[in-house]
């Protein structure tokens, strides 16, 4: 640290005129940002607005073409993240970078191990970690295995890791994306402690309510440049969002019900064991079998899950990730063996293959579009064929009908506003929002009777989000039954006609979306509130 007495008054980070060009594209231009020391400074902007490029520049992962970076008043030029770390800047990534089979302590010191000769000095490491944890209110048992930790604890480990390396300026990239409301509150408590300890936090987010509650200053980025800096006390979430998008924006809101009496999807007694699928003994019912497994102390990924979805109904499932949502989807899609029965439109589809289920009218917007939804290295029209290769227009006889597939992809591109140069472009060249719109368009194009929408607007910008909500709502009005799984509680409450909460593989509560708050929903999701059934 500088001994200059003026250092404290200087901005912790000052970016001036930062411009970053990639051939043909300007990712950032003329970005100006001043972060005062000892504050939480939020940077908000749509996906693809240039937030991550800017942070990569500040963290030394990319070099700017123009402009200057000053840290604590001194001009710096980072060539690698190590330079940034040396200057006291640390980054907590959105996706945790922890070794699951290591303890908390091991993860924190990993890569910066204190040593006595060649031996790891674990005593000294433990002291420092304890000191840091106590000083900043980041309590995590140092000897616990990371794989046993919840999301909130993992995040604390990430923050400790950065502090351990001597960071005084922390960059948090979308830190609340994976947290439930209670955990968000805890994180904010931590951030306030860090701030009190004189540290500076740069907080990247697009959840505006959170930004407003924690930030001391807010800078809005739109289309690669800083639009304005505002004081959170003088701005509402709605004004902030409009600054981000540059236009009016919609919300997911409840409208009159379109729910009908016809049951489209009926799931009864769906059960999945954690330690491999075994056939049910002859004569035993699924629930009796599940009872027996529970009595034996076996862990169940899905525990006797039953529900019905009617035509024109959106059934939302709320839950912290990893409580059986993925298993439920995979069981309905026929990608994972499960006990229990699934009926689509009155027909028992329990023994059907994934292909047959899709052909009979199940659409699927997967939770992870890169893993299950797209062939990134293939063109858009080939991605249109994916999942529909047995049905027209994609197929004619044994052939893939290229012309018809391309024409239909053109239609999706037009109707769903997919921004792409052409239908021959590779899927990886599109932004996340446009990839998602293509998937939504594809799944709607075969006129499904039942749609699984898992995190349909995750990582999607506000504009695309509104469009996807509209498509879901229109399809619902036309009689589509939808199973909606989401981590965005506003989305769940806003779109669903019926809301279930899943916790440890069980549907623990059935709530009325018209009078539930995100806080109460969060209580059910974490198991803090139990047992009540409302209708």
């Amino acid at each position, binding site marked *: 640290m500088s001994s200059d007495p003026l250092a404290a008054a200087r901005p912790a980070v000052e970016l001036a005129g930062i411009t970053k060009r*990639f*051939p*043909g*594209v300007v990712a950032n231009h003329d970005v100006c940002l001043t972060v005062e020391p000892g504050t939480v400074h939020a940077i908000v902007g*749509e996906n693809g607005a240039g937030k991550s490029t800017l942070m990569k520049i500040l963290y030394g992962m990319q070099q700017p073409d123009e402009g200057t970076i000053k840290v604590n008043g001194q001009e710096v030029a980072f060539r690698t993240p190590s330079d940034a770390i040396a200057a006291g800047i640390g980054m907590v990534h959105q996706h945790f970078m922890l070794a699951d089979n290591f303890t908390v302590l091991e993860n924190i010191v990993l890569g910066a191990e204190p040593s006595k000769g060649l031996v790891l000095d674990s005593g000294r490491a433990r002291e420092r970690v304890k000191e840091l944890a106590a000083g900043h209110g980041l309590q995590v048992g140092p000897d616990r295995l990371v794989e046993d930790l919840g999301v909130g604890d993992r995040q604390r480990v990430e923050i400790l890791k950065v502090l351990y390396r001597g960071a005084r300026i922390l960059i948090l990239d979308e830190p609340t994306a994976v947290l439930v409301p209670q955990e968000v509150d805890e994180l904010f408590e931590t951030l306030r402690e860090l701030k009190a300890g004189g540290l500076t936090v740069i907080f990247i987010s697009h959840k505006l309510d959170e930004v407003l509650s924690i930030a001391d200053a807010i800078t809005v980025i739109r*289309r690669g440049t800083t639009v304005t800096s505002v004081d959170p006390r003088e701005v509402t979430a709605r004004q902030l969002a409009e600054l981000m*998008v*540059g*236009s*009016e*924006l*919609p919300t997911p809101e409840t409208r009159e019900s379109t729910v009908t009496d016809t049951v489209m999807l009926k799931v009864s007694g769906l059960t999945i064991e954690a330690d491999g699928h075994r056939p049910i003994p002859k004569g035993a019912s699924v629930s009796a079998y599940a009872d027996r497994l529970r009595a034996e102390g076996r862990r169940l990924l899905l525990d006797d899950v039953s529900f019905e979805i009617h035509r024109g109904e959106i059934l939302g499932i709320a839950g912290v990730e990893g409580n059986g949502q993925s298993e439920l989807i995979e069981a309905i*899609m026929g*990608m994972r063996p499960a006990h229990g029965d699934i009926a689509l439109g009155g027909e028992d589809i329990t023994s059907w*293959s*994934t*292909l*047959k*289920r*899709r*052909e009979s009218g199940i659409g*699927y917007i*997967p939770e992870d579009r890169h*893993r*299950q*939804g*797209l*062939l*990134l*290295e*293939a063109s858009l029209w*080939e991605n249109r*064929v*994916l*999942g*529909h*290769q*047995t049905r027209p227009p994609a*197929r004619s006889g*044994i*052939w*893939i009908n*290229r012309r018809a597939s391309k024409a239909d992809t053109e239609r999706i591109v037009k109707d769903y*506003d997919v*921004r*792409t*140069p052409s239908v*021959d*472009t*590779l899927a*990886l*060249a*599109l932004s996340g929002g446009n990839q998602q719109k293509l998937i939504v368009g594809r799944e709607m194009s075969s006129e499904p009777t039942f749609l699984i929408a898992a995190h349909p607007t995750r990582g999607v*910008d*506000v*504009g695309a989000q*509104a*469009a996807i909500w509209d498509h879901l709502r229109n399809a619902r009005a036309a009689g589509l039954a939808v199973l909606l799984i989401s981590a965005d509680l506003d989305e769940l409450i806003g779109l669903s006609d019926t809301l279930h909460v899943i916790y440890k593989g069980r549907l623990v509560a059935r709530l009325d979306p018209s009078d539930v708050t995100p806080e109460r929903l969060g209580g059910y999701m974490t198991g803090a509130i139990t047992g009540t059934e409302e209708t």
Partner: protein
Amino acid sequence: MPAGLFRALLTVAGAVAAIVVAIAISSVAILAAGASPTQAFAAFFDFGETERSVVNGIATMLNRSVPLFIAGLAVAIGFRMNLFNIGVEGQYKIAAVCAAYVGSLFVAPAPIQILVIIVVAAAVGGLYALIPAVMKVTRGVNEVISTIMLNFIAIQLAAFLVRGPFTGQRTEGQLTTNTPLLPESAWFPNLNVLFELFGLPAPRGGGLWGFLAVAILLGMGIWVLLERTRFGFDVKASGLNPSAALASGVNPKKMVISAMVLSGAVAGLIGLPEILGDKHTFGSNFTPGLGFLGIAVALLGRNKPAGIAVAALLFGFLDRAQGPLQFASVPPSVIMIMQGAIVLLVVIANEITSRIAVRHEERRAAQQLGRNTPVEVAA
């Protein structure tokens, strides 16, 4: 420039760069062996003085390329869906010995006789490849390990069959054992007429093997299958993203079995150019190693039939120089060093060029969108 053309040019540029570096590496090896690189490289292009020797050289090169091409196709079918069929070597050996034996058991009109031999070879190769496929889908056995192990079994089994149950008449003083000689109706007509069209003399020996035509048809057929049909789409999807393929309704077990069996069936044909065009029998001195070379050829050709054809021709061109190199007192193992270096460098070049192509594609998309779309986001 259209994206496809850009990608193609980039691929060619990468391959050329790889070959140039491979030549440099081989020059060092040649110098270390105490020979002159210029003489060595002259030998590669030395097809002889007379028209006849040039024709002979070209026929040798093409005859070598045909089985390599088929082997490359066989390997590529598996590679397309990340299925590593290392067992092509064993599959072609076992198929060749069975086809040669079955073909010698009867006499039929030429087209029928040859067709039966081809079908037997493909069936045996496919069935032999079915074993690792079934092991993979039922018990999760890694196909790399099982196919390598099955190679040993196949090679020894073929050696046993040719000495035992399938053995034919051995002529006085002959050191090798063979299956019975095929009847003349199974002798595939040669393509020497191609040389005669240009007023050149016919090459010596078996001449230009007629199976070249079958190989070209096979290459085109496989291209159509992989690029235009539903099956080809499923193969591509399974290769690019198995989870997405599963979610889209592709049955991974069925795909593993059909791709593996198809790969094995094509592998079964590798020995036929030599059997039908030249030797008319399978002997203990039958050309070995074609299956392993096929892996290199498929890698070099980026698993695309046209690329595999070019790669097979390159390998054939290098292998032809065995003789001339010895005349130039250069150890012919230089050829293997070159082949190894080229494959290694081309794999590296492919990785680099595909990254460049991806980045180019992203930029192009961003650039066009920056120009074409309105700034405001519709609400």
